[in-house]
């Protein structure tokens, strides 16, 4: 089907992007002023895109649900950002970064996109340094690098444990400069509630002012979504509280295909769940696995004693501990990729060897490292993380091993886009975590920041011009078309309907219930049976929600319960699509593990013959089954292999 044309440029891998740029259509400076672009979301991807469009001379309107662009979820990224600079001279190259990313994604991403990502990675670092981002430096004054999972080189640039913060503040300052200049108009505390499509093209959005409740219309020649990931469909995740999937979902319902919705990253090192009041989970950086050793007791009896609190983990002798990652994967040990580490932890806990009061935790132990290197070295490396852990868990990780458990962290799935980052709706572009992106079935550490900034600074400013070049004859798009009327009307109807339910259960109770279904049935260990059950249970929950949810107050005020309810209506539909996507994919790949498809040793078993494609879902109408479209993946430049970390 030609709607799914990825538009990959001809030529050798390393020349595709150069060829594209040489032949694309451009808009001349005088005409740029006549063209309007809407950017929804000002995290790393959106802020960098909006600032770059503004500089080029387009009229930009940018939106965010936060009170300031500086608070987008990107601010929370800790570890770092990859680039193929090869400053340490340890053998890195654009090709190697490309190869590691394709392999890390378990061969479910598009070669041409991933290569371009690796290619522009170096310019991102140059850009950020020019903006004054204070990356870590060595004594000689040059930039420092560290290593991350899934790579044999040191290519990760970082700013203490706050890399996302510093990169976002860089993009925010570039955006602020354009706002001051008047090329970008920033509209904060404003939530997109629908996409407006006129004559088959994306032409605007409907928003709700989060302070006054006012429903507003905004029109443009093109719309960019950079609204982040939808990990919060699981209720508990490492994402910020307001991260959501609504804008992408609205685009899907207006005709944009949704790519690989079931591909979710579950991060192995998070602080375990410890009570039903809990609102979110906290990540403990991947870097800890460099020095920490992961273990559980060898016997169930000991595990039970630890769970009951009658045995202290530090009293359990070495020979009674099972360092299961080192046992199963001697070559990579504690540094296997995220998906492998998460599954192994779940396997041990499910078998009854877990620790902590719930039995849903494993130990990350620094005892050996402290003995070997001294406490001061560990403190210098991870001091802030240890402190964060102690604040939350109230235990001192220098003295007793840290408890960790996998948690939902990132969504590789998202709106399907072609090489130009354009969705199946002409004029609708999608960037950052919101698109189905370059990470295949598993994202490597430090590559989401790279992708967000690549999309925003270096890809969209080119590709959007290729689209806008023939739009110069279209006058400023008005908001008084029947399509805007209809979209506004439907938004208002949904709000009225929600407020009219006046049931008994709060939005959060529903969100928790959905989270349980997703975690138990669409989480780390999926089966055909579980996924089918999930579809039924989500449908039931959705029906119950619309009969029984309780939302106080009215629309025309600050109403956070209403905001949550609106996002919840989308999660209740998106969750079902995730289950459907997982059900169709009768293979295991990356973060998607179907228990029916594993090797005798319990490793993921891919089926390249039948599933080497992107699953792009098409909306077909209310309560109708969505349609699956397939974009076949061709690997011309890498050899597709079974991943092996043993």
């Amino acid at each position: 089907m030609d709607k799914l044309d990825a538009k990959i440029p001809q030529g050798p891998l390393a020349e595709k992007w150069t060829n594209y740029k040489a032949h694309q259509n451009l808009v001349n400076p005088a005409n740029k002023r006549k063209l309007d672009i809407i950017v929804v979301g000002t995290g790393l991807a959106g802020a960098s895109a909006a600032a770059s469009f503004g500089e080029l001379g387009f009229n930009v309107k940018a939106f965010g649900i936060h009170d300031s662009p500086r608070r987008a979820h990107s601010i929370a990224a800790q570890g770092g950002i990859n680039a193929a600079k090869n400053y340490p001279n340890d053998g890195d190259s654009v090709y190697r970064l490309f190869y590691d990313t394709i392999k890390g994604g378990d061969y479910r991403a598009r070669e041409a996109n991933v290569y371009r990502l690796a290619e522009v990675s170096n310019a991102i670092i140059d850009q950020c340094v020019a903006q004054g981002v204070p990356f870590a430096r060595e004594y000689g004054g040059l930039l420092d690098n560290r290593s991350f999972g899934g790579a044999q080189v040191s290519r990760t640039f970082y700013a203490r444990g706050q890399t996302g913060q510093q990169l976002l503040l860089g993009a925010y300052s570039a955006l602020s400069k354009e706002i001051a200049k008047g090329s970008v108009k920033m509209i904060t505390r404003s939530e997109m509630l629908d996409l407006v499509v006129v004559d088959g093209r994306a032409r605007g959005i409907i928003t709700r002012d989060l302070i006054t409740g006012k429903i507003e219309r905004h029109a443009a020649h093109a719309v960019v979504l950079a609204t982040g990931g939808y990990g919060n469909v699981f209720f508990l995740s490492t994402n910020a509280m307001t991260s959501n999937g609504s804008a992408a979902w609205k685009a899907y319902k207006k005709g944009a295909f949704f790519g690989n919705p079931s591909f979710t990253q579950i991060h192995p090192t998070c602080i375990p769940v410890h009570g039903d009041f809990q609102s979110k989970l906290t990540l403990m950086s991947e870097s800890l696995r460099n020095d920490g050793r992961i273990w559980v007791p060898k016997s169930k009896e000991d595990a039970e004693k630890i769970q009951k609190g009658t045995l202290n983990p530090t009293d359990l002798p070495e020979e009674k501990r099972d360092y299961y990652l080192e046992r199963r994967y001697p070559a990579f040990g504690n540094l296997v990729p995220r998906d492998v580490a998460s599954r192994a932890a779940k396997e041990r806990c499910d078998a009854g060897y877990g620790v902590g009061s719930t039995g849903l935790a494993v130990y990350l132990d620094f005892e050996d490292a402290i003995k070997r290197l001294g406490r001061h070295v560990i403190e210098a490396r991870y001091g802030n993380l240890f402190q964060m852990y102690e604040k939350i868990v109230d235990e001192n990780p220098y003295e007793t091993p840290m408890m960790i458990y996998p948690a939902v962290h990132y969504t590789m799935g998202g709106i399907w886009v072609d090489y130009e980052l354009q969705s199946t709706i002409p004029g609708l572009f999608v960037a950052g975590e919101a698109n189905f992106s370059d990470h295949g079935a598993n994202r490597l550490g430090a590559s989401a920041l790279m992708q967000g900034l690549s999309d925003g600074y270096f890809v969209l400013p080119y590709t959007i011009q290729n689209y806008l070049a023939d739009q110069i004859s279209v006058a400023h798009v008005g908001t008084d078309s029947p399509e805007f009327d209809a979209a506004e009307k439907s938004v208002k109807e949904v709000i009225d309907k929600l407020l009219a339910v006046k049931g008994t259960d709060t939005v959060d109770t529903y969100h928790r219930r959905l989270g349980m279904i997703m975690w138990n049935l669409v989480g780390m260990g999926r089966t055909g049976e579980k996924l089918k059950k999930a579809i039924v249970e989500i449908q039931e929950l959705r029906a119950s929600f619309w009969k029984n949810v309780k939302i106080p107050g009215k629309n025309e005020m600050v109403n956070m319960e209403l905001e949550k309810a609106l996002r919840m209506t989308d999660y209740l539909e998106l969750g079902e699509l995730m289950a459907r996507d997982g059900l169709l994919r009768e293979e295991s790949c990356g973060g998607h593990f179907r228990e029916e498809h594993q090797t005798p040793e319990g490793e993921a078993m891919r089926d390249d013959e039948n599933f080497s494609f992107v699953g792009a879902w098409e909306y077909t109408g209310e309560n109708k089954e969505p349609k699956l479209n397939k974009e076949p993946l061709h690997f011309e430049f890498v050899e597709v292999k079974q991943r092996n970390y043993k």
Partner: protein
Amino acid sequence: MDLTLKIWRQPSTDEKGKFVDYQVQDISADASFLEMLDVLNEQLVVNDEDPVAFDHDCREGICGACSLYINGRPHGPDKGITTCQMHMRRFKDGETIVIEPWRAKPFPVIKDLMVDRTAFDEIIRAGGYISVGTGGMPDANAIPIPKRDADIAMDAASCIGCGACVAACKNASAMLFVAAKVSQFAMLPQGKVEARERVQNMVSKMDELGFGNCSNTYACEAECPKEISVSHIARMNREFFSSKLISEKEK
């Protein structure tokens, strides 16, 4: 634990506010402060009452969205953390906790505990950036920067823009916030080119927005959840006066 909460309720910017007492029961010592407020809000919604509005997002001390005066202190009694990082084990069963919004003229209350901090964005727009476009930048390692300078720049850059410094200051001064940005760029060669205009424009924007003067009480440093040092204010003052001098000479 069971607690009494005295919370500032204010329907909107223009309406009057007042303290209202609430009781919450069975709060876990492991819950965070904001999770305790979630429990209260669930209770209010179930009882057909208006839940308490407050800003929050990351809940791990980095986005700067959460605020609150807790028992008279910005971000509560502990040093070096934000409200969202505080846990209920810090409080005792039966305690009364007083919760208020930031109180500072440039940060008007929007509703209850939620305030408008867009004045900070306006200060940044006045000059808190290096004017480079996208692309065509020199190699990142072209200019070595001494590690010490880069570290000081990073200390300054760790500001989360929460506004605790303003809330803590009896004059509602934004000096620490502005100084952190000015100082970050003053430490880096990239920031030097526009240093003069930056400091003057940011300071005059700060004054224009109604933030007060700095009278060196250092309450801002004491309450900053990122423990940003007032030494940045001294650096900014140097930048400011030398930029004024140069401007005078050029006249």
